[in-house]
C-alpha cells in the first residue's frame, strides 16, 4: 500500500516537473479568470510563479511545507489588504487542481489517477490553510484601522491661555504614543504655551515604553521652555510603576486633571480661590 502511494506521488512530482511551464500558465489563467474582475494579472503571475516551486518542494519532502505556508500566508494577506473576498482568494490556490487535471486528462493509468487524487487532497488542505490565514489577516486589518482611528482622534486641547492638555486614552503602542507626543510638542510651539497637562487616566497599563515616551516628552518640552504635569495616575498604576522601577524623577504628577490644571494655573500666575457658593473665582495676577 505505501509502496503504491509512493509511486503515485512520484508520478505527480514528475508531472509537475516536466510540465511546469504549461501548468503554471494554465494555473495563472484560471486564477485570473476566477479571482473577480479586479485582479491584477501581473502581481498574481509573480506570486503564483513563486508558489509553484515551493509547492513542488513541499510535495517532494512530503509535508515539510513551511516555506509554502509562508508564501500562501503572504498571498492571503495581500488579497485581504486589497479587499478581495475569502472565496476569491481560495480559488486562486484551488485553481491548480484544474490546471493539473487538464494535463493528465489524456492519461489513463491508475497510478496517475491515484496520484492526482492524493494531490487534490493536498491542495484542498492548502486551500483551507489559505482561508484561515485570510480570515486572520482580515481581522488584523480591522484592528489596525480601529487603532488608527483612535490615533486620529487624540486631541490636544487648550485648557486655558498658555495651558494645553492631552488626554491619553486606550492602549498605547509605540507608534501611537509617538504621534501623540509629537502633536503635543508641536502645539506647544504653535500656541506659545508654557504648560502642558498629560492626562493618563484612560491608559490601562503604563509600561516602560509609555514611561519612556512620557519622560522624553517632558524633557523635550522643557527644552522648549514648557513645563509638563502628568495627571490621572490611578492607584493601581502608581503601585505598578513603582514596582516596575520607573523613576519619574522631578516630574510633577497629580491625581486628577483638575488638580493638574489648578497647579498649572498657579504656576502661570493665575490665582484660584474658592468663593462662596462653590464658585471658582479666577483672578489674573500678571497683566
Amino acid at each position, binding site marked *: 500500500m505505501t509502496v503504491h502511494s509512493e509511486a503515485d506521488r512520484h508520478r505527480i512530482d514528475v508531472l509537475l516537473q516536466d510540465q511546469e511551464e504549461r501548468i503554471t500558465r494554465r494555473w495563472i489563467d484560471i486564477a485570473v479568470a476566477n479571482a473577480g474582475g479586479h485582479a491584477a494579472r501581473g502581481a498574481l503571475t509573480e506570486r503564483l510563479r513563486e508558489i509553484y516551486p515551493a509547492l513542488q518542494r513541499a510535495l517532494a519532502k512530503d509535508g515539510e511545507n513551511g516555506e509554502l505556508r509562508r508564501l500562501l500566508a503572504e498571498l492571503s494577506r495581500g488579497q485581504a489588504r486589497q479587499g478581495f473576498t475569502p472565496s476569491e482568494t481560495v480559488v486562486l490556490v484551488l485553481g491548480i487542481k484544474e490546471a493539473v487535471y487538464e494535463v493528465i486528462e489524456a492519461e489513463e493509468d491508475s497510478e496517475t489517477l491515484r496520484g492526482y487524487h492524493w494531490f487534490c487532497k493536498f491542495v484542498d488542505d492548502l486551500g483551507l490553510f489559505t482561508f484561515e490565514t485570510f480570515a486572520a489577516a482580515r481581522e*488584523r486589518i480591522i*484592528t*489596525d484601522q480601529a*487603532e488608527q482611528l483612535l490615533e486620529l482622534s487624540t486631541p490636544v486641547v487648550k485648557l486655558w491661555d498658555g495651558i494645553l492638555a492631552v488626554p491619553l486614552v486606550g*492602549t498605547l*503602542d*509605540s*507608534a501611537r504614543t509617538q504621534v501623540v507626543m509629537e502633536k503635543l510638542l508641536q502645539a506647544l510651539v504653535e500656541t506659545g504655551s508654557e504648560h502642558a497637562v498629560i492626562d493618563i487616566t484612560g491608559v*490601562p*497599563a*503604563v*509600561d*516602560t*515604553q509609555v*514611561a*519612556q515616551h512620557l519622560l522624553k516628552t517632558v524633557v523635550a518640552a522643557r527644552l522648549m521652555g514648557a513645563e509638563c504635569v502628568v495627571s490621572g495616575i490611578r*492607584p*493601581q*498604576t502608581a*503601585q*505598578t510603576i513603582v*514596582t*516596575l*522601577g*520607573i523613576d519619574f524623577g522631578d516630574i510633577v504628577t497629580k491625581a486628577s486633571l483638575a488638580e493638574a490644571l489648578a497647579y498649572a494655573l498657579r504656576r502661570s500666575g493665575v490665582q484660584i480661590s474658592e468663593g462662596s457658593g462653590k464658585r471658582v473665582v479666577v483672578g489674573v495676577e500678571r497683566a
Partner: protein
Amino acid sequence: MTDTFEVPIDSDSDVVVVRQHVRSHALQAKLSLVDQTKVVTAASELARNTLVYGGGGRLVIEAISNGVRRGLRLSFIDEGPGIGDVEQALTDGWSTGGGLGLGLSGSRRLMDEFDLESAPGRGTRVTVVKWVR
C-alpha cells in the same frame, strides 16, 4: 487541569492584543485590580521583548492550580538569538536597545514567579506566574 490559550506575537498590534487577552484572563482568574494591572504591565514588557529582541514568537496563557491556590501562568517563547548573560539582562537599567532596561527586572518584581530560560542561538522562554490571593 489546565486551560491553555495561545497568542502570536509578530507585530506591534499583536502586543496590544496580548495585553487585551491577558487582561481578560486576569479578570477571569479573579485577580485583584492591582494584580491585574501588574500582570498586564509585565505581559506588555515581555511581549515587546519577544517582538523586539526575539524577532517575534508567541505567548501561552494558562489558568493553573497547585491544589491550594489558583493562578495565571504566562510563557513568552521565541526562537531568536537568545540572551548570553542572563544575570546582566536582569540588571535594572541594562538595555541593548536604548530602553530603560527595566522590562525583565521589573516584570520579575511584578510577578510572583519568574523563570528565564535562554541560550545564545536557541531562543528565549520567559515564564511568569501570578497567584490569586
